[in-house]
């Protein structure tokens, strides 16, 4: 019976709020991202030189960095939520949490490294 022992909680208002907030930020950033990447650049995609040029602007760097972060947070929290719908065992949730944090950290470091690397190629 569920009533006797309440299982450990794995989701709360803070996580939900972060997901929502990240989602909202992505919405705003995406509009800028779209405008810059698809409407300003002819043909829809940038050439290598254009990309490097584009990343010289520090504002763009910050924006793309924020975009990377919010998308990562939103996507990983969202995937975690879908995983929780499958009623995984506490053990699997333990691995899931660490796996997602690890993947998120790696992707973040990789993304930031990419940003810096590309901007330094100019």
């Amino acid at each position, binding site marked *: 019976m*569920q009533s006797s022992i309440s299982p450990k*909680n794995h*989701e*709360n*208002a803070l996580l939900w709020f972060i997901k929502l907030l990240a989602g909202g930020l992505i919405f705003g950033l995406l509009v800028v991202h779209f405008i810059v990447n698809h409407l300003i650049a002819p043909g829809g995609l940038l050439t290598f030189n254009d990309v490097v040029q584009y990343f010289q602007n520090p504002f763009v760097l910050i924006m793309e960095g924020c975009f990377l972060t919010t998308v990562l947070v939103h996507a990983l929290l969202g995937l975690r*939520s879908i995983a*929780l*719908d499958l*009623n995984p065992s506490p053990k699997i949730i333990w691995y899931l949490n660490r796996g997602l944090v690890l993947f998120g950290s790696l992707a973040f470091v990789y993304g930031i490294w990419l940003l810096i690397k590309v901007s330094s190629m100019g």
Partner: protein
Amino acid sequence: MIEITWKITIRIPRQRQDEISAEWQDFSVEISPDETVLDAVEKIWAFQDHTLTFRHACHHSTCGACGMRVNGVEKLTCITPIREVTRNNGTLRVEPLRNFPVVSDLVVDLSRFFEDIERMHPPQVATNRQDNLLYEPVADESANLERLVDCIECGLCVSACPVALTDNEYLGPASLAALQQALAASIDTAEIDLADHHTGAWRCHSAFECSAVCPSNVEPGYRIMDLRKQLMQKNFKQWFGGKGKRA
């Protein structure tokens, strides 16, 4: 008055308690299109096959016992006229509710469901004002009179919920709506923390199927969203309110 009779085929998955899978059985029924799906099922039991099991009691949508899936949609069969779900010479699939263990034929095991609702301490009787949804107006002369609460605990919402399909631990729409109802009626023993959990209000993914199938104006989806709002308010107070009240 001319009595119209339709001839319809009713397909029911038959399953004994110890069997793992069900076998479809077809019944040919002659029935007036104004009679209900429950009437048809009862007719099968009375005249064709006395071994058919199904739950029913009040036959007018106040007890919630006769919830079934009719052509894949959750219906309270006592208020579902035949003409709404099929046509003359048509076929009707009548199945037990999803997301509950089947005991036999159309009977499902609701013990867990009732245990979870009871934990929420919902009122069984409330004033018209407390029982109505927030947006529903209530006439002054009847606002403080009482009525049996809307939820008839039929389980249709749980059967329709996509999250309940996969997550056995999810409290489900009926329990969460019961908690919201308990809070609305200011029941002391109602704990909002039960919803602040991965098995609670955060597990809902807004498919609003519960509200779509609810036969009794409970709108569980609306009530779950209201719980979320309350949880957000409570947490915002704790995060930013400084002296946020601790429960």
